């Protein structure tokens, strides 16, 4: 229990221990703690960022889905419209073609009719003339009445 050199020895020992602790023990441990703290903070920040990006991406995907649906319906509407147009067009074409064919047929028929009538008229005129010749062989001078006959023929 005497105060002696131990006092100074303990002070020196203590100083050396504190110096050693300050130099070699404290800084690396605190640095490791700080590094871990930073790592965790970075990780949390990255997770946050990831979550945010996920949110954005899902929003984008919903938007693009919506977009695609809209475009698809537009395309369908357009196609339907186009189809209706095509149908209308072909109906129109068919009608025009039909009318043309009809007109053509009618014109031909008309022509046939004319021709037939002409022929008929020729034949009737011939028959009439022949009949008349038969009947009037003697009394009718063909030459004298040819003008008259012609007139009748045209009149039929």
């Amino acid at each position: 229990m005497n105060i002696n050199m131990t006092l100074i020895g303990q002070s020196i020992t203590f100083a050396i221990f504190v110096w050693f602790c300050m130099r070699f023990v404290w800084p690396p441990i605190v640095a490791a703690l700080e590094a871990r703290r930073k790592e965790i903070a970075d990780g949390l920040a990255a997770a946050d960022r990831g979550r945010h990006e996920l949110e954005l991406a899902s929003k984008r995907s919903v938007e693009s889905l919506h977009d695609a649906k809209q475009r698809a319906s537009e395309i369908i509407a357009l196609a339907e419209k186009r189809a209706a147009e095509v149908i209308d067009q072909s109906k129109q074409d068919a009608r025009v073609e039909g009318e043309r064919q009809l007109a053509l047929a009618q014109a031909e028929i008309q022509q046939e009719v004319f021709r037939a009538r002409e022929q008929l008229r020729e034949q009737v005129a011939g028959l009439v003339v022949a009949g008349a010749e038969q009947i009037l062989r003697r009394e009718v001078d063909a030459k004298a009445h040819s003008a008259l006959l012609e007139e009748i023929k045209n009149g039929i």
Partner: protein
Amino acid sequence: MSSEAHSSAEYIKHHLQNLTYGQHADGSWGLAHSVQEAKEMGFFAINLDTMGFSILLGAAFLFLFHGVARRAKAGIPGGMQNFVEWIVEFIDGAVRGSFTARNNMVAPLALTIFIWIFLMNLMDLLPIDWIPGLATMLGLPYMKVVATTDPNATFGMSLAVFFLVLYYSIKMKGVGGFVGELTLQPFGKWGLPANLLLEGVNLIAKPVSLALRLFGNMYAGEMIFILIALMFSGGAVLALTGGVLQWAWAVFHILIITLQAFIFMTLTIVYMDMAHQEHH
């Protein structure tokens, strides 16, 4: 009965004497073999047990912590690293709470004080006759295991802290500022002698109270262990009671040794903080 009382006194004295190496009265150097001899050696003697145990424990602490510090990594810590980090964070928190200035030395200082004192105090929990008994077998006359029951150890530390306080007081405030702090308050410049007396006592009380608090607590605790140990030689009933008492006191002592280490550390931080304050 008187011989038994005598042997009890011997036993207690034996446990309270350090293993002192110094110059004998006849001029030769060697170990003191009695309390009287140790006293006669005067100041130029050294307590081998105090130095030995404190250096051993301090070295063990630094070796352990340095091993962890060398391999410290930011990834998942192992068990030992976890333990060391827990202590370091605890100390760091205590320093942040009490120390407002910036000084990279205070936290390592606090760590060293806490762990070193704790380990030295911890030796108190060893049954008090184990190591002294071993030392007696080896032919050493005395062996005090708990370095903090030697005032040399506690004053050695508190004086080192005191010099740090003085150093940083002067470094932070300048000689004028420090002297002003000692002389110009609390009563202004006309109360200079009273100020000097008050502040001087205040200043000197810091290292003295630090050292004596730790020493007193540990010395008293050791004394109680010694007294309890005396019961072991007093028959079966007393021995059994002594065993129970020793266990109970040891459990309580776990609190005391931690608390004393913590108080020494906290007060050191506070004193260092006061040394850095410039508001006066």
